[in-house]
């Protein structure tokens, strides 16, 4: 196709503009060189992935979810495979905010791409503690407030399904934290546009959708759940159609940018989310299967832009409406 039309081609790889400006409601915008952001928890804190390629080629990097105290995470098994998907119940294993600041953040200084810290809490107070400890951390471009982790008991999920709670936490975090704020939403809800609007009203700069779908798998020979934690979160290609729908459904209702995620595995998937209305896209599960997926996906986006003679990637945002 590309070859056949090559005489007519005007836009070549050098002309392409893949950069994305993520607008802020009141603070500074976040500029990404391309729309690819790593999804929290699927890329560690960068080091392991950096063994495979220069991750500075990505748009931004999101760290593994951090809580106030160190967490050992859930018992094993923590992962189960399903049709075109996986269920995880890692349970937010992390060294706690103080160790994160002391040990993890300094390592991110080697990277030139924007770093986002993903934070999770067991109470409203937790989120405020985390936000205040991260305020003014120069290493960070912003924070992703995870109001949607399904793997901690009585925790994130409860906030994430009540619009008032989402509004309150976002508002309080906004008062404390001056960098870019992304609120990450759960899909385990009747109408995600309600929590998305609550986040916007609370002052979020952007929302990220979706976190994982609540799910489980049973070992039929042992007649018990595969995951030690019984339930976990479904991610990967299987959930993409649900995620794209939620982005599409939210796009016209929101005035802040949407980060789309859930099953992105190819450049085609990135384009699909952007056409639905995502300003940028996070890549999660695919990194676990193909560590260099980010590079391939960037190349595939370029191919698409050249094939369709689109110079500015950002012009396709919401174009399927």
């Amino acid at each position, binding site marked *: 196709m590309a070859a056949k039309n090559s005489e007519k081609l005007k836009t070549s790889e050098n002309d392409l503009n893949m950069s994305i400006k993520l607008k802020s409601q009141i603070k500074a915008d976040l500029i990404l060189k391309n729309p690819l952001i790593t999804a929290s928890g699927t890329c560690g804190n960068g080091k392991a992935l950096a063994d495979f390629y220069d991750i500075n080629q990505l748009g931004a990097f999101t760290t593994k979810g951090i809580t106030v105290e160190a967490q050992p995470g859930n018992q*094993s*098994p923590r992962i189960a495979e399903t049709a075109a998907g996986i269920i995880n119940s890692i349970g937010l294993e992390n060294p706690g905010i103080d160790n994160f600041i002391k040990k993890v953040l300094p390592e991110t200084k080697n990277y030139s791409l924007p770093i986002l810290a993903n934070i999770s809490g067991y109470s409203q107070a937790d989120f405020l503690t985390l936000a205040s400890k991260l305020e003014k951390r120069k290493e960070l471009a912003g924070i992703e407030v995870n109001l949607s982790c399904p793997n901690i008991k009585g925790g994130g999920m409860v906030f994430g399904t009540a619009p008032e709670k989402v509004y309150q936490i976002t508002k309080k975090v906004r008062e404390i934290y001056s960098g870019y704020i992304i609120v990450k939403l759960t899909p385990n809800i009747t109408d995600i546009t309600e929590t998305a609007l609550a986040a916007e009203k609370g002052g979020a700069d952007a929302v990220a959708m979706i976190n994982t779908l609540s799910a489980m798998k049973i070992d039929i020979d042992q007649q018990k759940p595969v995951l030690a934690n019984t339930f976990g979160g479904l991610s990967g290609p299987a959930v993409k159609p649900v995620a794209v729908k939620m982005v599409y459904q939210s796009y016209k209702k929101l005035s802040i940018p949407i980060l789309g995620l859930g099953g992105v595995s190819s450049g085609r998937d990135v384009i699909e989310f952007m056409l639905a209305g995502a300003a940028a896209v996070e890549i999660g*599960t695919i*990194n676990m299967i193909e560590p260099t997926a980010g590079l391939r996906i960037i190349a595939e986006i370029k191919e698409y832009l050249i094939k369709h003679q689109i110079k500015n990637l950002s012009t396709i945002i919401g174009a399927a409406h």
Partner: protein
Amino acid sequence: MFRVIANKEVGPNIFQLVLKFDNLKQVPQPGQFFNLKISQNESLDPLLRRPLSVFDFEATEKRLEFVYRVVGKGTRILARTKVGNKLDLIGPLGNPFSLAQKDKELNLIGGGMGIAPLYYLAKKLKASQPKVYLGTASKAELKFFESKFKHLGLEYQLAAVEEKLDIKGTALDLWLTNLQKKPDFVYCCGPEKLLAAVEKHCLEKNIAGEISVEKRMGCGIGVCLSCSCQTKLDENKNKRACVEGPVFAMGEVVLSGC
């Protein structure tokens, strides 16, 4: 790029997979593993890779071997892979067995498919003439492994739970039966129960050693924390079986939760 040279049943539901590679970024060490993609072409199911330990490696022939048991969908599909097909592998991955044990009294204990990584280890330790103890459920499962260890010219003993070989019982029974002289270093790979029992014995008797643990893995490269093992020192300080393991020093990680 890996090409299938052979993929044949060498025991009941046990397959030997022989691959030819173009180049590897690193020479695999005993105890390390590769993560194999199962789905072909653009299929997204099965999604995850499958970890398999290096069974044998020959640098000059660019040959890499695995031995695996068919237990589920992934290994069933792998078993149908034909000679000539290309496979997508990531590796070598993980922390290998330590080899600086020359001229000591070494024991290798393998139970079930835990025998697979011990062959390449035994090859590397051959000069030290380690004693090898292997156990499986049935005699048929041991046949292939026996022929390989015999060929190496090492002293080995065999046990099967269902039939009497050197003894009738597990690899643990076999090892304990033969434990007259205290070894300097013990390598063990196999079911969690075997690892725990051997470790307990070694810690009690002050025998140093290493075990290779088998954890469900998401990525195999250290990014997802699916394979975390609690360390004995600090319950909040975990180690990843795919990076800090699968080979751990005896007493390093909590086995029950593993």
